């Protein structure tokens, strides 16, 4: 037990030993040094006059944003619907692609731990590490601007997320049920259908709704690079410095996000 000498010479309890203390201080020192170094490198080209000006700028923009141009909401209804569609169809696409990948990645359902599993895991990591905005950038180059690029971008980005959580759920199933179904002479597809699917269905529904909720946020910005939805209007309003429209768009996004969060919380609550 780590102890320290108190003033009267008796030993008192401490949470850490002296060596642990030193090690911790050294780690913190390293972190602080890394931070200062990064800060200096990062800000070497910063124009501080602009930064000092920031509060005035913020007040200026805030002033231009108020009041929002409410009449613009008429033109926003279609982009808002598109944003919802991108999120929903993108999530559906992701689910369609992620379910087989998850089954191939789960240790207990993959056909080959040596060969197939690493490929499935690579797909999961690679799709997850590229942000949906970058996917959108690539897809707009290939498919041209439009909702389709947004849907596919959201779909591809979500494969990794859905796939990872789903294969972890598959690996955690109760094996006794699988054995029971196998004992009836079921074919492999029937084993999946009757023994595995019922066990992961609640997790699956929860994951899907959770991702849909995230995708609403993501689909509000893919338009910035031309992939459809309300981001297109945001880009257009920013380029024309129409801050009163920007504020209305931000309010619309906020409303949509709160709505999706409410739906997702309700659905997950109903499942669990």
């Amino acid at each position, binding site marked *: 037990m780590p102890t320290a000498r108190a003033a009267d010479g008796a030993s008192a309890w401490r949470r850490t030993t002296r060596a642990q203390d030193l090690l911790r201080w050294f780690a913190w020192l390293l972190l602080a040094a890394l931070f200062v170094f990064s800060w200096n490198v990062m800000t070497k080209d910063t124009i501080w006059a602009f930064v000092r000006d920031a509060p005035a700028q913020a007040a200026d923009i805030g002033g231009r944003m108020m009041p929002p141009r409410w009449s613009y909401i008429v033109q926003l209804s279609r982009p808002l619907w598109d944003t919802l569609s991108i999120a929903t169809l993108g999530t559906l696409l992701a689910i369609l692609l992620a379910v087989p990948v998850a089954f191939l990645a789960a240790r207990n359902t993959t056909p080959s731990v040596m060969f197939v599993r690493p490929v499935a895991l690579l797909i999961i990591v690679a799709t997850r590490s*590229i942000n949906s905005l970058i996917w959108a950038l690539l897809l707009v180059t290939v498919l041209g601007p439009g909702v389709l690029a947004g849907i596919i971008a959201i779909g591809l980005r979500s494969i990794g997320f859905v796939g990872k959580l789903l294969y972890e759920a598959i690996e955690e199933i109760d094996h006794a049920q699988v054995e029971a179904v196998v004992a009836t002479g079921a074919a492999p597809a029937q084993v999946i259908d009757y023994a595995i699917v019922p066990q992961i269905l609640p997790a699956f529904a929860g994951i899907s709704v959770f991702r849909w909720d995230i995708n609403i946020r993501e689909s509000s910005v893919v338009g910035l690079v031309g992939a459809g939805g309300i981001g297109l209007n945001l880009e257009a309003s920013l380029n024309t410095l129409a801050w009163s429209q920007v504020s209305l768009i931000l309010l619309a*996004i906020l409303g949509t996000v709160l709505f999706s969060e409410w739906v997702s919380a309700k659905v997950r609550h109903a499942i669990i």
Partner: protein
Amino acid sequence: MSIAAYPDTWRRPPFIASATWRWAIYLGALAYLVVAAGAVDINWARLAEGVARAGRLFVGFLSPNFTARWSDIALGMEESLTMTVTSTVVGILVSLPVGVGAARNLAPLPVYLVCRAIVALSRSFQEVIVAILFVAMVGFGPLAGFLTLSFATVGFMAKLLAEDIEDIDPAQAEAIRSTGASWLQLVNYAVLPQVMPRLIGLCLYRVDINFRESAVVGIVGAGGIGATLNTALDRYEYDSAAAILIIIIVIVMAAEYASSFVRKGIG
């Protein structure tokens, strides 16, 4: 019931028990799909043109060019990495008091409400939208990206930290409190040891996320590798773009591997 009428086959119960609701949900979903799919207007001529570009993109991936734009890539990566470090540190430092304040079992109601409002505000907007506003305030460059990522980190960390604190074992807090500990001692000896392992895991996870996001805030001018990538795609330099994407994937995978390694060491 006669023997003949007794069911001799088993059918599993449907996922949604009520038949009316089941069919209503199925039909509603189908109708929505038809309407939503109708909103997707596909320009086939543009799509045909895109096939050739997809081919060139693919070829670019097979032969990524790291050298042609190396100075741009190096500068972008430098900005992304420094932005990741600074914003994670600052974001976590700010999120600690906010997270403690957003935990109902430690904070009084007014503090709780204020902290929850900060969390909600920070989480509602996608990083890129926040970046646009910060770029308008402090000008182009990685400082805007740093502010954006710090802001996003606060919401993320504070929310998860608050949930963790609310889930702690109250018996331990009770034990410390009964020794006459002050509020700070309570946090230090009863709360911190319980949430620390998960907190470290979350911090590492956030490093990961911040790096990934630092790759996109550049698209709106907030510095980082995203700007380089955007330029490369605009110039149709798919081999350079492929090189950037490969670097991003490798760094994210390395970070993920390292963080899972550290988390295993803690847990």
